[in-house]
């Protein structure tokens, strides 16, 4: 079964987003949506396969707020964060909010694909269980 990806970005017209869609092609289809149009409930209902959410170009409290919203609202809210300017404070904040990985856009595409494969292979557990195990 093909995977579904949703890229939530502050810059939907960005050339990188289209390139990223091409990179992800072997793993599944990527849907790009603007941050302002995001509604996790709508997306959850629209997809039979629970998508992997990728947050791009959103930082600080907006990033952590969005991660929490996705995790809280969708049935299997898996999130990873991509950024052009990685820093460890934001990486920690992303993981603490519930992101499964934090990737730099500067990584080689194959490395990005491997990391996403690793996240996809992770068994999906309910969020409450996950909190109690971590």
């Amino acid at each position, binding site marked *: 079964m093909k995977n579904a990806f949703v890229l939530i970005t502050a810059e939907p017209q960005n050339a990188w987003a289209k390139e990223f869609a091409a990179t992800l092609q072997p793993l599944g289809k990527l849907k790009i949506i603007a941050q302002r149009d995001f509604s996790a409930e709508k997306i959850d209902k629209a997809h039979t396969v629970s998508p992997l959410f990728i947050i791009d170009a959103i930082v600080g409290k907006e990033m952590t707020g969005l991660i929490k919203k996705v995790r809280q609202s969708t049935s299997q809210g898996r999130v990873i964060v991509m950024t052009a300017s990685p820093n*460890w404070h934001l990486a920690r904040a992303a993981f603490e909010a519930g992101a499964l990985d934090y990737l730099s856009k500067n990584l080689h595409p194959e490395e990005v694909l491997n990391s996403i494969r690793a996240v996809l292979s992770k068994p999906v557990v309910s*969020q409450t269980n996950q909190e109690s195990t971590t």
Partner: protein
Amino acid sequence: MKKRVLLVDNLPACIGPLRDFLERCGYEVVTASNIGDAIEVADKTPPDVAVLDLRLIDDSSDRDFSGLELARLLDSKIPKIVLTAYPSVKAVRGALGPANDGLPFAVGFLAKKEPLEMLLQRIRLALSPPNHSLLNCMEAPTMHALPEKVHDLGVDLAADRIRDFIANQKRDLSIHLERQERKAADHHVVSIIASIVGFAVMVIGILLSFWNKTSASIISMAGSMVIHLVSALFSRQADKAHLRVETSLREMEELIKIASLMELCGCFENSEKRDQARQAVLDVFIESMERHPVASDQFKNNIAQSA
């Protein structure tokens, strides 16, 4: 019983202040300076939480992630917090990312230059289970998701739910308080009776010694000592129960304070101001719950134990 923290760092200069700080905060601290020692210490005295330096072999090498190797080797049930003087995205990903068969090695990541209170907060969080009663009441998946849930529900509905939660907590606390008070009183009575009996036996022993019945006198003196010991034990139990009552009272006071503030917010005629005030109270409440995630699950355990 004190919770035990395993502290692993190759630099003794780092271990000393951390150990002093954690001991002052009421933890029992065991230490190790390398992977082998740490595994041995953890086997002998299993810790409740482990604080691991990231670079345990070579502090100058940015490839030294031996702290994560130790995290992998220690029992997976022990929550680990990674501490480093050299924080980086790679280190954060290594500790909190899906490196360990899709699961993170650690529950927390801190730079050594960050305030010690942050370490304390992470340790408390690692040792405390999530407050399921509050999460169920708010229909939130995690404690971190609570503020967002309050935002989604709207202040009025969230305030109603928190009010229900507080009412339930107060009821549970009252039951707990009553039982602890009864227990304290029972232990106190037993302690006094044992003390009186002990005193009477001692007097008998003294009288017997006057009548030259030495062996009987020794036996009654020994008996008196045993009874006094029993009395002391019961007295200690009574003190412990009193302490629990005091803690419960303090927690109840905090809940009543929040509930009263919530009621006061209703006095604002201007709905915008009322919502702002309620939001502020809810923020304080959620923050205190994240700091001390004890509440009802813990109380219920206490009640079950004392029943």
